[in-house]
């Protein structure tokens, strides 16, 4: 048997921890003594239990009466059913038990719910009981009515899922449960969920929605009730297919996304976004920016606008807001014209007979934007990750195949190189590339960034987070179709490195001060014994901060950390961004943290987040939340509901989009540092929870 096992498996088995035999023996003696003592008491407890059972029987009288009424109502149908389909009854007795007249003279075993089983819950040995009833009892008749089969074999029900809420003592049947792998279908809102219309396919802007383009699904009431309470009926999401058919999408709607009222408009509606106070809208042709807007932009997104401005143009009549750039010695300057403009509309404008983009921005910034549109090229739109970082999507065809063979995933830190054709450096080009103008080489290999954060790597593009300055260079390189290559950023520690997970619970400080990934100084505080002073261990490492703090550090320090853990020496740690890192994240309140909730906790089978971002809320349902040291959990019908705002979400699962299967993929959420801390605590606490994501 061992021949089939891998060396890793053999090694694990060979190094199984063994107990001290004295300890085993002593514990056995203590347990047996206690068990014998207990068995004397047990007889008294049995008597008490008997009395309790009698009381319980009385308290369930209304239930029994209800079963009786049900049975009386249904018994006619049952008799008809038995008469009509005797073959069916016989054929299915191996998986479920029927109350055929032949069985009426005996007792039968029936599996019933031990406690309330919620929709979607698996049937396990812990939430069911076996009861024995007379085969012709009301329970048996009621359970078997209308072709419903109850179960008497425990092995047949284990692993099935409840598709409706099952009350205590309610028989487990083939109607109220489904196979483990089956999709749960809920038939009425009152029973189990709130109907929500989702897109059955990707829907493009301007497309008129037909019935075949949408699905009706049912969100668990525990999740949907929050939405109801917050925003009125359905929380703005459509519940009936009829109400959405005929409307036009005013934002791209991904397959499987719930369709919100703000995502569609009646054909006569022309401007669905309500502008914030003090904002005005301005439009210009989409083709002016389309070639540079490499990251996907959607209605409602917040964008920065970066333009390369030739200093020579800043003479005569130009906006006062750009005055600070007029005296520069540089020929070309990268200027962020506006931070945080809102994309109000993208699409065809009949009056202009072309596709336009409409932005809403503070009135004071409009003048500069209009001037830049007229005078500057190129203009880059960048969707905002935070104030210091922007997202750029690099078309796949520009990235050399060899470099993409590396296994890269979202949250990896990468370097980006470009093979620059010096002949391309004519006319407008980013100031950062001006040093290569005088090169005698036809092509120059340049490093565009050494510390970009990969957000998503789906065809046809690879989205990366870089600084605004790097975004300008990248955008120009993309526009000039310059080939690029990427590689994972090497850790700057010159030593053997090992990965290690640091427990979030032992982190001191605030995630505000941390980069999502980068070089940090790790400071570990521990006490060697109960009385001595605190000891401090300091070393440098490369870090990815996610649900767990993932370190790449010199093996010596990894071993030290592991040694602390193994020897059960409690420690705390903090992480300090390194000042001398090649490029540091500017710490601010706007930094966000990437978290990856476990897919097995997902409440719905799949999500289809928008590529490149999109805001959402993640709703956690936590049955046993009372012990969690977390604020913000709302009790709803006995279930804890926790809602966190998601700045951006993505998934690395093509299977999710293609087959509704998220089991192979991971949902990645960008949360605020505070919310990421809350998620860390939730995940680390070990309590049962589920989550779903509601796009906003």
């Amino acid at each position: 048997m061992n021949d089939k096992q891998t060396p890793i498996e053999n090694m694990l088995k060979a190094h199984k921890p063994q107990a001290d035999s004295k300890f085993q023996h002593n514990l056995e003696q203590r347990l047996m003594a206690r068990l014998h003592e207990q068995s004397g008491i047990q007889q008294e407890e049995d008597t008490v239990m008997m009395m309790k059972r009698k009381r319980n029987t009385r308290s369930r009288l209304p239930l029994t009466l209800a079963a009786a009424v049900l049975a009386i109502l249904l018994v006619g149908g049952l008799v008809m059913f038995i008469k009509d389909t005797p073959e069916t009854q016989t054929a299915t007795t191996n998986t479920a038990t029927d109350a055929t007249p032949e069985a009426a003279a005996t007792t039968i075993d029936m599996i019933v719910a031990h406690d309330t089983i919620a929709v979607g819950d698996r049937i396990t040995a812990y939430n069911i009981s076996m009861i024995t009833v007379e085969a012709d009892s009301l329970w048996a008749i009621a359970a078997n009515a209308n072709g419903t089969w109850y179960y008497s074999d425990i092995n047949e029900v284990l692993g099935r899922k409840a598709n409706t809420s099952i009350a205590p003592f309610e028989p487990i049947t083939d109607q109220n449960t489904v196979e483990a792998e089956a999709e749960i279908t809920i038939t009425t809102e009152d029973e189990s969920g709130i109907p929500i219309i989702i897109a059955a396919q990707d829907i493009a802007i301007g497309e008129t929605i037909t019935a075949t383009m949408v699905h009706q699904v049912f969100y668990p009431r525990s999740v949907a009730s929050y939405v109801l309470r917050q925003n009125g009926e359905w929380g703005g999401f459509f519940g009936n297919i009829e109400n959405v058919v005929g409307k036009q999408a005013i934002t791209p709607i991904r397959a499987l996304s719930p369709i919100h009222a703000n995502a569609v408009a009646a054909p006569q509606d022309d401007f669905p976004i309500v502008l914030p106070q003090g904002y005005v809208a301005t439009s210009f042709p989409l083709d002016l920016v389309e070639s540079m807007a490499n990251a996907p932009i959607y209605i409602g997104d917040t964008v920065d606008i970066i333009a390369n401005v030739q200093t020579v143009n800043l003479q005569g009549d130009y906006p006062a807001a750009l005055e600070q750039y007029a005296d520069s010695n540089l020929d070309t300057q990268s200027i962020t014209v506006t931070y945080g403009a809102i994309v109000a509309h993208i699409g065809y404008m009949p009056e202009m007979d072309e596709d336009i983009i409409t932005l809403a921005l503070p009135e004071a910034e409009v003048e500069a934007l209009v001037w830049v549109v007229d005078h500057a090229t190129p203009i880059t739109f960048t969707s905002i990750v935070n104030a210091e970082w922007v997202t750029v999507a690099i078309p796949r065809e520009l990235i050399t195949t060899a470099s993409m063979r590396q296994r890269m995933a979202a949250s990896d830190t990468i370097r980006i190189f470009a093979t620059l054709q010096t002949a391309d450096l004519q006319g407008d080009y980013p100031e950062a590339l001006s040093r290569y103008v005088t090169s005698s080489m036809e092509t120059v290999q340049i490093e565009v960034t050494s510390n970009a954060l990969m957000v998503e790597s789906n065809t046809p593009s690879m989205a990366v987070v870089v600084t605004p300055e790097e975004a300008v260079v990248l955008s120009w390189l993309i526009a000039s179709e310059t080939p690029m290559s990427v590689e994972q950023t090497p850790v700057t520690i010159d030593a053997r490195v090992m990965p290690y997970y640091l427990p979030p619970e032992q982190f001191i400080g605030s995630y505000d001060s941390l980069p999502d990934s980068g070089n940090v100084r790790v400071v570990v505080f521990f006490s060697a014994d109960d009385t001595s002073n605190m000891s401090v261990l300091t070393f440098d490492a490369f870090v990815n901060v996610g649900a767990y703090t993932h370190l790449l550090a010199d093996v010596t320090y990894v071993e030290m950390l592991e040694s602390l853990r193994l020897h059960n020496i409690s420690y705390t740690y903090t992480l300090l961004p390194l000042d001398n890192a090649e490029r540091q994240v500017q710490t601010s309140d706007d930094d966000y943290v990437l978290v990856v909730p476990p897919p097995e906790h997902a409440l719905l089978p799949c999500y289809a987040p928008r590529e490149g971002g999109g805001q959402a809320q993640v709703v956690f349902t936590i049955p046993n939340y009372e012990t969690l040291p977390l604020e913000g959990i709302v009790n709803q019908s006995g279930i804890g509901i926790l809602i966190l705002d998601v700045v951006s979400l993505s998934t690395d699962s093509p299977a999710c989009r293609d087959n509704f299967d998220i089991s192979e993929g991971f949902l990645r959420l960008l949360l605020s540092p505070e919310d990421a801390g809350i998620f860390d605590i939730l995940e680390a606490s070990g309590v049962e929870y589920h989550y779903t994501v509601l796009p906003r």
Partner: protein
Amino acid sequence: VYERLTPDEERDLITNLAQNPDSFRQLYRHYFPRIYAYVASRVGSQQDAEDIVSDVFVSVIEAITRFEYRGTGSFAAWLFRIAYNEVQGHYRHTFRRNTVSLHDLADMDSDELKPDEALSQKERFERIQAMLATLSPRRQEIISLRYFGELRNQEIADVLGLNEKTVASHLSRALDDLQHKYGQKDVQA
């Protein structure tokens, strides 16, 4: 002391427990090494492991009259669920503690082993712990239940409240990760 039980023997012992408390002795001897190995692999310290294992079995005998035998594997899943809960409780408690004495280190050595063997075992165990620590907590848990608790995938699924396929997927990936990271040659060294 280890007594291996067949499923039928286990069933008989459990169903007769009310009449014959001594039946528990055999169950204990059958499960103790597996529970201990699982717990020790999760907490890393002998002292903590012994404390937790004691709590587990005390909980078991307090609750065993309420346990209903539901077929092969049901008792193991129930038992390991108790152990899993105790380990989780230990984590939560440990996170709130500030310091632990270094004297705990002395307890790591087993009385049964000669000093050189003990050192060797300790080192090898630490090495495994270091390897497992590179996995996500969920996969560490599954590896521990599988190879130290000797549970089948379905039993692990019951303990952790997961789908059996999810367990199999985690297990396969965890082994792949370990194999990829440490390699066959390294492992056998």
